[in-house]
């Protein structure tokens, strides 16, 4: 397995370089360094001198990929691409275009994102699996039918609707929780109850239907029939056999998203005023802040790769037949 992981890490380096090149190329295809400078300096009284000064200050006064004026290796290294990319592989993200430290922002915002995403993920997963198991257990009954109808209906409604409706009902009409905001530590609980509940509620649908299908397929297998023939109770069959074996395909979709919980939820954070990394990313895209965008894309790619490796490893843990070579 060690050889496999080392090999995956080496692949990851190639993937990350590719991601970095694509991000860089796409960003500068849309914006020139002059555009970035003008956006940061504002719309009023911006002089060419001020733009030149801003670019020089932040290293945007160099060529993008190739410096024809430089000699030797410097032709490649004395460029915006090289200078902005190399440090990132050492997880030094530098400063945002407004001059603020990106690593500092990530450190201060990540806890808020995790405080929202982790409970939403755990509770959501628990409810989705439980609901799917129930539907599988009562399959071909009214409960199963209406359960599937409910799931399809939930899949059809935008999560924005749930957010606005939830804020209206629970905060505005019933005054049960704050409508938005955030606080550090345990005080965050009262701000997180509603977004977590809405996030969990809104996620019932696609995942539940998928898990239901997995469980039903599993329940039709020979070992389940054998277990029932042995006289095991339905609960034992479900939880000891079906759930355990059904978890293998579920893991595919679940483990891979665990690392990306870190990057936060764009919409929920924005509407509930939670200062997480999701809103950081969306603001950076709006402000065309290359420093933040490339850092968040890089982190997203790293986390996704970690997620895939963890998924592979988790297969070996839940299914002894699988080995990584």
């Amino acid at each position, binding site marked *: 397995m060690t050889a496999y992981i080392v090999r995956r890490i080496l692949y990851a380096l190639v993937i990350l370089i590719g991601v970095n090149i694509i991000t860089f190329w796409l960003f500068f295809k849309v914006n*020139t360094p002059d555009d970035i400078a*003008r956006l940061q300096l504002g719309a009023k009284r911006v002089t060419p001198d001020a733009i030149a000064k801003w670019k020089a200050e932040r290293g945007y006064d160099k060529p993008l990929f190739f410096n024809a004026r430089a000699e030797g290796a410097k032709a490649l290294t004395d460029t915006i691409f090289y200078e902005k990319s190399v440090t990132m592989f050492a997880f030094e993200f530098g400063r945002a275009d407004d001059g603020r430290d990106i690593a500092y922002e990530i450190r201060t915002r990540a806890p808020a994102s995790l405080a929202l995403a982790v409970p939403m993920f755990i509770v959501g997963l628990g409810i989705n699996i439980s609901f799917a198991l129930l539907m599988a257990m*009562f399959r071909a009954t009214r409960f199963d039918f209406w359960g599937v109808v409910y799931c399809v209906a939930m899949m059809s409604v935008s999560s924005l609707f749930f957010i606005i409706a939830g804020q209206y009902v629970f905060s505005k009409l019933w*005054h049960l929780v*704050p409508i938005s905001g955030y606080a550090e530590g345990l005080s965050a609980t009262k701000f997180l109850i509603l977004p977590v509940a809405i996030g969990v509620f809104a996620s019932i649908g696609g995942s539940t239907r998928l898990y239901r299908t997995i469980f039903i397929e599993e329940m039709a297998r020979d070992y389940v029939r054998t277990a029932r023939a042995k006289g095991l109770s339905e609960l034992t069959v479900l939880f000891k056999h079906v759930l355990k074996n059904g978890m293998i395909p579920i893991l595919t979709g679940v483990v891979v998203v665990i690392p990306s919980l870190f990057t936060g939820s764009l919409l929920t954070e924005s509407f509930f005023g939670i200062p997480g990394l999701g809103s950081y990313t969306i603001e950076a895209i709006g402000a065309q802040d290359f420093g933040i965008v490339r850092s968040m894309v890089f982190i997203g790619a790293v986390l996704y790769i970690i997620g895939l490796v963890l998924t592979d490893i988790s297969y070996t843990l839940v299914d002894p037949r699988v080995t990584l070579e």
Partner: protein
Amino acid sequence: MLHRSLHPICNRLSVVALAATLACLCAGCGEAWNNPYSALEAADNTLYTSFTERPKHLDPAQSYTSDEAEFTAQVYQPPFQYHYLKRPYALIPDAAAALPKPRYFDKAGRELAADARAADIASSVYEIRIKPGLRFAPHPAFVAANRALARDVIDRKFKLADFGESGSRDLTAADYVYEIKRLAHPRVNSPIFGHMADYIVGLKDYGETLKAEVRKLGADKSKAAWLDLRKFDISGVKVIDSHTYSVTVIGKYPQFLYWMAMPFFAPIPWEADQFYAQPGMVEKNFSLDWYPVGTGPYMLTENNPNARMVLARNPNYRGEPYPSEGEATDRADGMLDDAGKTMPFIDRIVFVREKEQIPYWNKFLQGYYDKSGIASDNFDQAIKSGSDGESGLTPEMEARGIKLRTSLATTSYYLSFNWLDPVVGGSDPTTAERTRKLRQALSIAMDFEEFISIFLNGRAIPAQGPIPPGIFGFKDGQGSMNPVVYDWKDNGPRRKSIDAARKLLAEAGYPGGRDAKSGEPLVLYLDTTDRGPGDKARLDWYRKQLAEISVQLEIRTTDWNRFQEKIRKGNTQLFFLGWNADYPDPENFLFLLYGPNGAAKADGENKANYANPEFDALFEQMKNMDNGPERQAVIDKISTLLHQDAPWIWGFHPKSFGLSHAWMKNGKPNQMANNGLKYQRIDAALRAQKRTEWNHPVLWPFVLLVIVLALLAWLGVRAWRRSEAAVAVAPGQRA
């Protein structure tokens, strides 16, 4: 068997119901559950408000947006400020002891009389005397040991309070001079350096000197040593004594005093500059951009621009009396109730970041924000229009004791023609008359009264020219009317009929909207960044207006960068823009049409590229004049010229609508002064009472939900047990 198994479920249901009932009872006597703040703060003398965009710069040399001024204007004390109550807007001293009278000198250095002709004045000297006894807010930079910290010590600091001991000292004239020097600092990027370098004697050269010094220190900002600006002097800026300094500007520039009311000219202590220049500080976000240090009524004690910012009373601020005079209606409005009392009244101001409109509005209605603007989505809930066209509060708002304050913004929005464009521009003398009539026809067709009614809920007035209300040169009534677009009827300007526009269009060579020579339909192009679903109605409206005179309008949507680039290169035909006053002087609006400021030619603010030598001559004459009948006469000439040339379709001047709760006092909109928080007062006891009254938790739906879930669980268990007990063949049916 089944009956027995239900017992535990019923017991559990009873416990849940009991707990819910108890919770219901408790809620009646407890605090509001939806309070986003700590219950301990309920009775504090704290103002709660919000911000949308995180401030990019709190460094006064760099900060230029109104979002940032909301913070910097409370922290810093420039020499001058605007009178809070008086209109038209008037400058008064802030940190300065008095408003200085400029002394004028000719090229030979001889002093001229105060009424000397602007053309004779080679330089103007402003001598500013600072009030004695003003002190900086506590800050670690004033402790010498904190300015010589090792890198590893800084690495262990996370917030300003971690530096331990704080100090302070008296404000001196040198602190104001230090800030003027910072405008030229190559690492600071002040947005006004280019502009000020054209006026302040020696500032341009000073910038070059500093560039050379910075090069000597090293290119990497984070590792470079501190550049002590005290060692280098600007020839036109001098410290005269500990509390007096002078600034020499080139020629006559009366608007300079307005600039000195902005944070750009606030004092910065050299100690702070040295403190923040230590290696490792920038990496930890310790900078003037993050932690300002000033002498104003408040200091920034919490800076989390992602969630909330907190200003607290500066313990070293010696106070300032609340104004005792204002407009005629101010006394009746209670604006003078606190006359003479020492400001600031509020101890703490909490700014909460609120990016979405829905939670922001609802928190205001719940009493968790003390004041609010009104978004279009909430307009009908908050405002009703009376039969006389006046806006008032809806009964729902009145019942809550909410107050409405309106004011006309010192802002102009306009639809600009590109003067360089061959179809609508006026740069080609051979077609100038034809294009002028075309622009006039389009000006009539673009019915901004309708626009204001549909898209702004009536919150604007149609513009008759570039100068907005509240600025010298703006006139109301028949005298200011644009006679090209309006006729004076029934005591008001009435837009000319669409037939008048069609007639002008025909005279321009486009009868029926077609080129008289080629027969081709006239197609115009509007460049815009509006492309969201919400913008479609507005873009359709533009098309509809021109369709009324059979002119086709193509909308070219683009992103902000490309839009700006097109304007800079003069590759546009029509585009919509606005300008918000930097200071209350007509020069600040008319310079937007001054030929040498052309965007395509000089990358200036004249985005229309309008160039008319007659206008330029009048503008040059007007810009240095003192306010008075002579200046008004020149402005009138300019207005007449602009009405005829129509380089812009004069759009509208927006009205700002602000709401505040009954516990807020002294809230008067002031479009120029950003330091208004020191004037505000709140009744915290009334607020606490209303918050509790308005936010009783409603628990019955919660109880109902628990019961329904319990019922569903019970039904599920029952069904499962039935299925477990079921047999394939009933006993009676066995063979």
